[in-house]
């Protein structure tokens, strides 16, 4: 294509994107078509990828195609292997995309569709994708070293330790909140519970199949597994209609939480091949298949978005979680906009497969854009619901009342239309006993997906689509839970190994059991508190997770900024310093409000004090009074945890600034740990394309 034509095409993309974005932002009418969101997203991603990412690659990082990557230099046929770029992209995307981008946007939709959408787009393009890309680059230049190691090498011991401790704590909170999402999806739903339960023996069977029956036939085993999973959704419906079977799977939240805790422990102790590995395969296929199907359905169907652009809850009175638009929309949507967790994949795992530095833009920046797109689709699935229905499903009983009539009256008083009959009909359509107060985001996402799939591929199957969506969410939430518990165990063993050598051995069974139990107890505690909390628990845990995840992102950006300054690229350091400044602002503000706010729905201490005052005056009903002491303790614990996160973050920032200052003044700093240049020998056409 000649140059002028190219310019015209990009100009058209730019104009279309601007037009779509202004349509989204300025629309104050009844509803807007979801296609505008998709159009705006695709145009913004395309322009950012073509210009911003390319500029970062060429000018800021100065990608060197002639340089041999660690995969080439250290090729051992195992973890270091030069790999086709599409394959690396696939592995990288499968590893970074978890349930986070599905849950966050759903919760943030309480502010309306606009704030979350803008943050997902801008945050990904200027923050998240940049973080993933620069981390991937710096790790590639350092033999694929992990974020923690890079922080230690480049900034100092404090930075390295902070990254390690931060990762561990995020893991604990992440698993707890994801466990809570699954529990809330299974509560009093025999269909969902039996389907999710069935995924465990299915995964084990596939594990045995791949290991013993037909060793290494991964695709064959996966095909069988996926068919069995689909069958389990059908079987769940059958269980639901069978009076004697359904009582076996009809449970309150607490027994389900205990079941998840026991399961999590078993999964961490059992060998990987039996449960974790096969489950990971199945969930990856499910995830990719469902995301692609959802995208196709949205494009075919072009659903209308019924949620207003902004709701009155931007003032901080929202039912799903308390807190104003700033900073809480930025905390609630972490994955999908910017996620610190990705830095762990971008360093360590992916660089060891990279054939040429040229591919860093596509893999680091591109995969994050795709994840951001998944978040946009989750936003669409949440906002195509009638707002009244959305709030009825997502508002906890502690806010709108336990009885359906009270909940409906309360939601109507906010100006959102919904009736008890409408909700009952919806629950019947979806094959559930009730859809009121099903917090956590999974049920409302499933209703949204079921209605989109239902209209695109057949309406009479709504209940099946709903439970398919629940199964799809549950299976990869449980995968994250398994894998996270295991990683937490490894980290803990690594740390304890400094004190007692025996405890550090990953195959020493008493140590395995002890450390797994500690990790499970950690997240099990938060899961338990979340389940007994009448406000649903998600409103506490999710912001905590958001703050932790953004903190890790800030640490990754700190390391990157430090390296840029040390490499004499002060003029370009804003590329990472800009998102870093924003993250520090939002996490610090959010943490400040979570600790010191007088609003009992925001401030941890305010909530604790309010609860203990009510407890002493006897204003609480008996069932709430029974759990109040535990809730009060938990509010205090959460406050100190938040304080700890912010303290860690500021320590790393000050450390980084000190290093930069020394460097700019010409004083000695830790040397750059970049591996020296060696020319690539690969005529890489065969691996790359």
């Amino acid at each position, binding site marked *: 294509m000649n140059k002028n034509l190219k310019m015209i095409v990009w100009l058209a993309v730019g104009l279309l994107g601007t037009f779509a974005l202004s349509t989204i932002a300025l629309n104050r009418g009844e509803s807007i078509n979801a296609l505008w969101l998709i159009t705006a997203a695709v145009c913004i991603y395309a322009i950012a990828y073509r210009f911003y990412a390319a500029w970062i690659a060429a000018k800021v990082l100065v990608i060197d195609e002639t340089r041999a990557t660690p995969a080439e230099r250290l090729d051992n046929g195992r973890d270091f292997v030069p790999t*086709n770029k599409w*394959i690396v992209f696939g592995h990288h995307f499968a*590893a970074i995309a978890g349930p986070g981008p599905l849950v966050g946007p759903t919760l943030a939709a309480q502010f309306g569709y606009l704030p979350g959408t803008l943050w997902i787009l801008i945050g990904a393009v200027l923050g998240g994708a940049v973080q993933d890309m620069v981390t991937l680059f710096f790790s590639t230049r350092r033999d694929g070293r992990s974020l923690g190691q890079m922080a230690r090498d480049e900034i100092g011991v404090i930075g390295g330790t902070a990254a390690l401790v931060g990762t561990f704590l995020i893991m604990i909170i992440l698993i707890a909140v994801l466990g809570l999402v699954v529990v809330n999806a299974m509560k009093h739903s025999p269909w969902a519970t039996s389907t999710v339960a069935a995924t465990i023996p299915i995964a084990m069977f596939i594990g045995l199949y791949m*290991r013993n029956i037909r060793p290494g036939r*991964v*695709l064959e085993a996966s095909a069988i597994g996926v068919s069995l999973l689909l069958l389990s959704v059908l079987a769940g419906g059958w269980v639901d209609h069978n009076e004697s079977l359904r009582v076996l799977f009809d449970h309150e939240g607490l027994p389900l939480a205990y079941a998840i805790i026991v399961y999590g422990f078993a999964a961490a102790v059992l060998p990987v091949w039996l449960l974790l*590995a096969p489950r*990971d395969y199945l969930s990856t296929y499910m995830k990719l298949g469902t995301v692609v199907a959802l995208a196709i359905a949205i494009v075919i169907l072009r659903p209308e978005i019924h949620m207003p652009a902004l709701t009155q809850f931007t003032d901080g009175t929202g039912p799903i979680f308390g807190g104003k638009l700033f900073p809480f929309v930025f905390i609630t949507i972490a994955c999908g906009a910017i*996620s610190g967790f990705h830095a762990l994949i971008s360093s360590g795992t992916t660089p060891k497969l990279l054939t040429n530095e040229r591919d860093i833009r596509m893999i680091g920046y591109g995969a994050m854009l795709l994840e951001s797109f998944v978040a946009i689709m989750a936003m669409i699935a949440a906002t195509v619901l009638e707002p009244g229905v959305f709030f009825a499903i997502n508002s906890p009983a502690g806010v709108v009342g336990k009885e359906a009539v009270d909940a409906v009256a309360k939601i109507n008083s906010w100006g959102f239309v919904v009736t008890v009959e409408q909700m009952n009909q919806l629950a019947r359509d979806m094959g559930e006993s009730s859809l009121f107060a099903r917090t956590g985001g999974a049920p409302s996402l499933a209703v949204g997906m079921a209605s989109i799939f239902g209209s695109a591929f057949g309406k009479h199957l709504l209940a099946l689509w709903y439970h398919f969506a629940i199964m799809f969410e549950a299976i990869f939430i449980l995968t994250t839970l398994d894998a*996270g518990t295991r990683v937490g165990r490894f980290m803990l063993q690594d740390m304890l190994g400094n004190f007692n050598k025996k405890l550090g051995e990953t195959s020493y069974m008493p140590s395995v059991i002890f450390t797994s139990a500690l990790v499970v107890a950690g997240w099990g505690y938060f899961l338990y508190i979340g389940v007994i909390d009448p406000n649903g628990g998600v409103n506490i845990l999710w912001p905590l997770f958001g703050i932790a995840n953004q903190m890790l992102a800030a640490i990754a950006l700190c390391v990157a900024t430090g390296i840029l300054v040390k490499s004499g690229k002060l003029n370009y350091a804003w590329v990472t310093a800009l998102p870093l400044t924003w993250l520090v602002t939002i996490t610090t503000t959010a943490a400040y409000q979570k600790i010191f706010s007088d609003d009992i729905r925001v401030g941890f201490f305010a909530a604790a004090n309010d609860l203990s005052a009510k407890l002493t005056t006897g204003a609480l009903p008996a069932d709430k009074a029974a759990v109040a002491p535990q809730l009060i303790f938990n509010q205090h614990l959460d406050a100190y945890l938040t304080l700890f996160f912010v303290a860690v973050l500021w320590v790393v920032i000050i450390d980084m600034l000190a290093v930069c200052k020394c460097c700019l003044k010409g004083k000695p700093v830790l040397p750059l740990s970049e591996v020296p240049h060696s020319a690539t020998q690969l005529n890489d056409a065969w691996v790359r394309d």
Partner: protein
Amino acid sequence: MLKKLKNFWRCIWPMVRQLSGDDAYERYLKHYAEYHAELENLEPPLGREAYFKQWQDGKWKGVRRCC
């Protein structure tokens, strides 16, 4: 049309296999033949089952999943 689909499939299928690890053993044998052929008598390549075990265990060290 049919031919195009066939070509497309021919291009996609090896990728799917590699992404999933379905062909990991074949790739291992190739790597072995290329780099360690001189060891053939001392240390023959692993069998499919033994290799798969090693591959799977190796894959699960470290962070593999995000949020």
